């Protein structure tokens, strides 16, 4: 029995060591990025790699990224503005629809639901051209409103919230009805509070996806002052083609807010991804 336990522990230690080695392969690019962001350009590509730079040029790199021609804080502000607005609107629209799909009875409801989820297979990439035309006709080309409009409807999150609301006990709703609460009251003060955990998950994931989006800003924005972070990265790539220290400072700056969100809310993020799976 003891020998068996020992054998089990030994194999666990070996597997942990192997996975530990593999995990280094996932961490090293991040460490290299951080280390390069602190270096003089000449030292970035020096080999063997100086993991802890001897001479530090972080202030210069930081200034180049954050106070340059088109400063990074502008991209930050734009990304925060777009991602927050999109997240809030998605939460409202998707939970409204989910409430209607689960707790209100009327003809045509299930048909609409079926239609909605069957449209989920249409890749947004296949409707880029007409979306672009729509935005132009609406006079929204080169505005943040275009990005918000493109991202604020989410069939996927509607579906996710519906699944959750199906599980909400109807007794709460019946009790509230007897107390004279209307539909809006029930939605606002009963449904939404009961859905708080899943709403938080949806919010985090939608925020991350919008923050990381590259395609929509690339197509709908022209003015550099409106660029989001991801598009700003492309600008840095063009302006500092061979200045990797500055590029790495820009990459670090682009990732850091998400890393903070992730480290604080890792359980929620991971469970949220596992919950529905599909990205899109």
């Amino acid at each position: 029995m003891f020998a068996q336990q020992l054998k089990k522990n030994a194999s666990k230690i070996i597997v942990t060591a192997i996975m530990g080695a593999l995990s280094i392969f996932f961490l090293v690019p991040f460490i290299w990025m951080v280390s390069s962001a602190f270096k003089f350009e000449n030292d970035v590509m020096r080999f063997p790699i100086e993991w802890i730079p001897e001479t530090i040029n972080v202030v210069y790199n930081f200034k180049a990224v954050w106070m340059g021609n088109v400063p990074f804080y502008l991209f930050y502000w734009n990304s925060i503005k777009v991602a927050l607005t999109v997240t809030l609107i998605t939460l409202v629209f998707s939970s409204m629809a989910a409430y209607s799909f689960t707790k209100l009875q009327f003809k045509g409801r299930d048909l609409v639901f079926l239609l909605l989820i069957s449209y989920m297979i249409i890749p947004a990439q296949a409707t880029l051209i007409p979306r672009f035309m729509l935005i132009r006709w609406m006079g929204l080309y080169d505005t943040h409103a275009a990005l918000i409009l493109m991202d604020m409807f989410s069939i996927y999150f509607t579906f996710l919230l519906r699944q959750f609301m199906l599980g909400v006990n109807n007794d709460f709703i019946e009790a509230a009805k007897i107390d004279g609460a209307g539909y809006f009251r029930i939605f606002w003060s009963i449904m939404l509070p009961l859905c708080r955990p899943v709403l938080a998950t949806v919010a985090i994931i939608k925020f991350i996806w919008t923050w990381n989006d590259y395609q929509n800003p690339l197509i709908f924005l022209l003015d550099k002052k409106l660029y989001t972070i991801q598009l700003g990265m492309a600008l840095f790539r063009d302006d500092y083609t061979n200045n990797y220290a500055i590029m790495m400072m820009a990459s670090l700056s682009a990732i850091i807010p998400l890393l903070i969100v992730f480290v604080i809310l890792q359980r929620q993020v991971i469970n949220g991804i596992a919950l529905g799976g599909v990205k899109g």
Partner: protein
Amino acid sequence: MEPAKSILPQGQVKPRRFWSPRRKEALVGWLFLLPEIAGMLLLNVFALLFSLYLSFSEWDLLSGIKGIKFIGLDNYAKMFQDEAIGQALKNNLLYTVFTVPVSIAVALVMAVLIHSKVYGKDYFKVVFFLPYISSIIAIAAVWSALLHPSLGPVNQFLLELGITNPPKWLVDPKTSLLSIALISTWAGIGYTVIIYMAGLTNIPADLYEAADIDGASSLQKFFKITVPLLRPTTFFLFVTMLIASFKVFDIIAFLTEGGPHNSSTVLVFRIYEEGFRNYNMGYASAISWLLFAIIGILTAATWKMRKEDAA
């Protein structure tokens, strides 16, 4: 239907209320659905039909709506002769082959190991998931520096190992697509691991205990219990990753712009280039429909597979 009116005490006639509770519920129901329905009509129904119409037209955008010229099947005919489209299709397929099976196999093994046999489970979950949470653009920027053909640390390391002619990665037409596939596999595998780990928690532990009593080896348990019971998860991952691999765009647009010499171009990048750089809106729409058809067929085929699998 008789007592449609009621007589009020004063003798006035009060019409039956139009807003019966049922009607009111239906109205509220539709009101709550309104935003999502509007979004669906605008961004899906209208967009799809309009792009279908455009795919049979020639239009350069600048000439305004009146400039749309119906040209029948010409765009589709052109597509079959367009070498870049052929290359894009081939690249999409190769990219799928490079990314999907490897990700699924590696992630499955990683998930099983993390699930049952390591200390510090949470550490591994977080580390492998880190690239997925980070923006693919920032990740791509880091890797493009790491893979720099002459100065990059990866090739310096390979030279150190005695490999005299290390691959030129993103700048060589022979390896550009493979490099992109490697980077996106690296960046996306954490997601696959997480989904597999969620699937693993649903396998009852007593199955493994019973197998232990029968003296099954770890490998036997893996192939006889874990793999078969994870089949639905594998199927789900296979379908979503297959479809996602045909939508790949961001990393390619940022790193190679489809180059060098179209060696890493893909369908979505063709749509972008034809539509937003050359302003061939009609032709770009035809490519969009090709993409849509491929994804539709893949979805239908995999669902059929699953039905047969279940039967």
